């Protein structure tokens, strides 16, 4: 309180902020990035540990014997699938029934807003089949899910086979206290969405599916399995769900613990953990893993079929069997034992997984960075904006032309402006005369605000609404039309009449752009803070790219450099760079043309994810970040 009420203290503080503004901003930005890079180091990333007592101390002995049977089921399933030309519903029903499960099927249909070219689907019809193993020791109040996607071609047959073999084995055991649902979903995420909506009896997307279904109590946890070979060399785990939501860390710990127990190699982001921690290559390795996680989480796209469970408050991970050129291979029995162990431990749960972290980043499977450690990195970046705001909003700046960036509130009370500064003891230094300028008023800010938000709204609505018109007038397919309209509107936004304010009295003045910049910075800081809470990676990536340009932008000085900086910081360029970085980190760098193709795909994907599953990055970028960026562009074009 002393700092806020004691004028001497205040003056010293405001002088410090004003004098050292640029160095402080640079320092804060560098500190933010430096903190992020340091997060891969052991002191900031402690070892993971199991918090949940019900899963930690109890031991289970896995006895799954049916490795060969799993392969037989897999061959059968593959043959039946080939014969049926899709999911062999009848065969699955018969087999599951034979194993003693309660079997249900769920047909669903969904017309996409525009054709999905990468997966070649538009009007989708499919069927999910699932069997419920009723727990002998409880009254069907809780359940676990093992889900397997039934995808195109011969993919994933082994996963279905293993699932059926596990079901056969689980059926004979007496210790189950939670029902287990064995689910085969068609059309990957679409089927999963349809099933989850029907199971919880809600309809949040335009999915059409049959209503009544057999249920098995509240789902506590889910594992999605993907397996396409008879033997595996390692397991990869995907954690990032829709909108960057993550499952409880205990579930990941559980997977890691059982992989270690059975001697399986396990990876995250396709990266095997190194045994050493204190060498430079090891640091680079964990930083790569961390960056990959940030990129994937920031995209807001589910990285596996588990991604949609998280929205329903169900902890879930996707486990992928990988068969690479390593020497040690593991057969189905070992894989089955690992899954059996996980399910038995989950069966021991007394309440929902809640003990461990929900906000974390993983530089490797055995180390994690918690929210308290990663938030400062973002905080330092936002501090740059706050420092700039306080400069614009708080005190005088000895600019090259004796420019005064006045307190916004003083500008609004013009009659008091002259004497106010003397009394407003925060900056008695500003007592000398104010250069008299015509006052822009708040009216000058209205056109830029309206224009920018209208552009954002157009960007959000027009691509999908206008696809018919576009395909009639241009020789493009519908999917192409959507993506190209998106890019066209995005670029056109920069050419909008950003000088409309000049028609108003007092427009084009220094105070005008400062007020606009103040507003834009506040807007940016507020929306990035909200985004970082919901999806840290998205907020951090946007902050890391947009903050320097936002802080530096002004209509005077080297405008070309500033314009280039601003264009480089726009969300679309961030996405493009993110794609290149992603491929680089996965050690299969993309060329320019390939990168561009991936970029177009990512745009279409982003729109589809929003319309199909309600993913938020696209509306967030189109309706909030893009208009905010346009406001900054406006500041640049003020004169």
């Amino acid at each position, binding site marked *: 309180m002393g700092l*806020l*009420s*004691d*004028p*001497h203290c*205040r003056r010293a503080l405001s002088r410090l902020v004003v004098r050292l503004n640029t160095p402080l901003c640079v320092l804060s930005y560098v500190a933010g990035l430096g903190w992020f890079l340091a997060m891969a180091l052991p002191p900031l990333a402690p070892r993971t540990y199991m918090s949940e007592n019900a899963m930690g101390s109890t031991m289970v002995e896995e006895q799954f014997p049916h490795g060969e049977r799993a392969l037989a089921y897999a061959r059968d399933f593959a043959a039946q699938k080939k014969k049926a030309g899709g999911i062999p519903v009848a065969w699955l029903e018969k087999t599951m029934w034979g194993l003693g499960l309660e079997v249900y099927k769920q047909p669903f249909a969904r017309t996409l807003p525009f054709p999905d070219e990468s997966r070649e689907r538009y009007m989708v019809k499919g069927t999910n089949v699932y069997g419920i193993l009723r727990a002998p020791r409880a009254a069907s109040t809780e359940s676990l899910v093992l889900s397997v996607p039934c995808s195109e071609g011969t993919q994933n047959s082994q996963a279905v086979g293993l699932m059926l073999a596990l079901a056969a084995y689980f059926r004979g055991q007496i210790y189950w206290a939670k029902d287990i649902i064995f689910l085969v979903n068609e059309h990957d995420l679409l089927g999963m969405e349809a099933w989850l909506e029907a199971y919880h009896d809600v309809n949040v997307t335009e999915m059409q599916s049959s209503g009544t279904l057999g249920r098995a109590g509240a789902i506590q946890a889910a594992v999605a399995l993907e397996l396409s070979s008879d033997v595996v060399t390692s397991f990869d785990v995907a954690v990032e769900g829709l909108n960057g*939501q*993550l499952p409880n860390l205990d579930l990941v710990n559980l997977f890691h613990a059982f992989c270690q127990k059975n001697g399986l190699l396990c990876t995250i982001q396709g990266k095997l953990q190194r045994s050493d921690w204190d060498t430079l290559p090891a640091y680079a390795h964990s930083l790569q893993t961390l960056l990959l996680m940030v990129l994937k989480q920031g995209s807001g796209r589910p990285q596996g079929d588990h991604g949609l469970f*998280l*929205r329903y*408050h169900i902890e879930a991970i996707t486990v992928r069997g990988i068969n690479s050129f390593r020497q040690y291979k593991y057969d189905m029995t070992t894989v089955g034992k690992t899954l059996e162990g996980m399910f038995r431990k989950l069966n021991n749960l007394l309440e929902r997984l*809640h003990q461990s972290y*929900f*906000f974390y980043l993983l530089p490797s499977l055995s180390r994690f960075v918690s929210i308290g450690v990663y938030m400062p990195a973002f905080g330092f970046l936002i501090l740059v904006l706050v420092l700039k*705001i306080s400069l614009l*909003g*708080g005190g005088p700046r000895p600019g090259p032309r004796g420019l005064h960036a006045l*307190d*916004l*509130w*003083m500008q609004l*009370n013009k009659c*008091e402006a002259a*004497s*106010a500064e003397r*009394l*407003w*003891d*925060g900056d*008695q230094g500003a007592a000398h005369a104010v250069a008299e300028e015509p006052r822009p008023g708040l009216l000058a800010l209205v056109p830029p605000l309206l224009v920018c938000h209208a552009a954002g709204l157009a960007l959000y609505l027009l691509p999908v609404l206008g696809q018919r018109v576009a395909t009639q007038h241009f020789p493009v397919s519908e999917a192409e039309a959507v993506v190209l309209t998106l890019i066209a509107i995005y670029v056109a936004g920069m050419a909008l009449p950003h000088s409309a304010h000049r028609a108003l009295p007092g427009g084009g003045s220094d105070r005008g752009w400062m007020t606009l910049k103040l507003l834009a910075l*506040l807007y940016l*800081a*507020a929306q990035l*803070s*909200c985004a970082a*809470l*919901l999806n840290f990676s998205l907020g951090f990536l946007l902050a890391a790219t947009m903050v320097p340009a936002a802080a530096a932008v002004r209509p005077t000085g080297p405008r070309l450099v500033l314009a280039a900086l601003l264009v480089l910081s726009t969300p679309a360029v961030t996405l493009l760079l993110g794609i290149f970085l992603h491929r680089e980190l996965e050690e299969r760098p993309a060329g320019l043309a390939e990168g561009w193709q991936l970029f177009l795909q990512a745009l279409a994907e982003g729109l589809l994810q929003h319309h199909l599953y309600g993913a938020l990055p696209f509306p967030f970028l189109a309706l909030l970040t893009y208009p905010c960026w346009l406001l900054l562009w406006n500041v640049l074009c003020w004169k």
Partner: protein
Amino acid sequence: MAAPLVLVVLVAVTLRAALYRSSLAAFISERVEVASPLSAWKRVVEGLALLDLGVSPYSGAIFHETPLIIYLFHFLIEYAELVFMVSASGNLWSFSLVQFKKQKLLIELDKYAPDVAELIRTPMEMHYIPLKVALFYLLNPYTVMSCVAKSTCAINNTVIAFFILATIKGSAFLSAVFLALATYQSLYPVTLFAPALLYLLQRQFIPIKPKSKSFWLYTMQYAALYLCSLVVIICLSFFLLNSWDFIPSVYGFILSVPDLTPNIGLFWYFFAEMFEHFSLFFVCVFQINVFFYTIPLAVKLKEHPVFFMFVQLAIISIFKSYPTVGDVALYMAFLPVWSHLYRFLRNIFILSCVLIVCSLLFPVLWHLWIYAGSANSNFYYAITLTFNIGQILLISDYFYAFLRREYYLTHGLHLTRQDGTEAMLVLK
């Protein structure tokens, strides 16, 4: 003056009507920031249903509104939206009639230091204050949300607005009646008794001295009026329902804070975390906050009852047991009245940013806690705490600015130290 006011009303009514029809209305009325257990429309509907069945509405543990409100809506349920619109407009009407006169200023002009002319408000500025107040109240997003959610808080606000109007117009009788109604509605406005009395005394030119006979006479008169109307209203409620059930159900509920649904106040988290046998003591400690500041404020601000009223309203909305954004909007409507204090405010910019960012973070953290299940109550309470600290700092900023202005008015704008250099005021 009339034309812009009509325009403001039209805009405000259109906005509310559009929101009532949109899908947002259901979303807003579910928000804990907007609807408290006391004022939620859902609970009023529940109470009405019980009443229609011939059961006492207080027999369940859901309904906590006063009997008068339930009978009001018993007859007007079809026009509920209209009632809330009218209550908003009624608010506006009363605010616009309030002229916030400062006769004192003119009377004592000769006492002021010679160079403070610029500190005294011109009639021109005064002229626009009602319009600004109307704008601030009717277009404040907090008020709009509270109205769209049909929170009965809007009706409480209207009663308080009428009370302020009656007080400022100098009608002791109406002022006492509306104060009694406001107290009856939500209990806490009882603390507004002191500023109202001070204002009325000032208006009658009665000196505030414990020895003066007329002072005590007038005080007794006003207190008697207030108590009589309160008794009448409470008896009326008794005869309407034929039981005293509403006393524990409304006032007991307000004072003992049994419902710990999260809201923007300070109570819920503490009492959710606390061991049961300490809670009585801490309820007393927390509740006393609302009443505690009245006496020192009355001593310090006895010459400025309108400002006192503003500060007291803010204190109520911060420290009451089930606050909503509607309560915050009520005292925020007064901010334009003190526009002449802007130059003395130190942190208004920072504090408004804090309040705006907190308002944005409320739904985000609620989503993370309740829907995503990844955050927990600590996250939400952290924002609640920041929001309330922001409000407290805002009020103390205004209070300090007010005191400084008074000081400058009597001592002149350019203070000098003993050695002739320019001095400045420091709050220690």
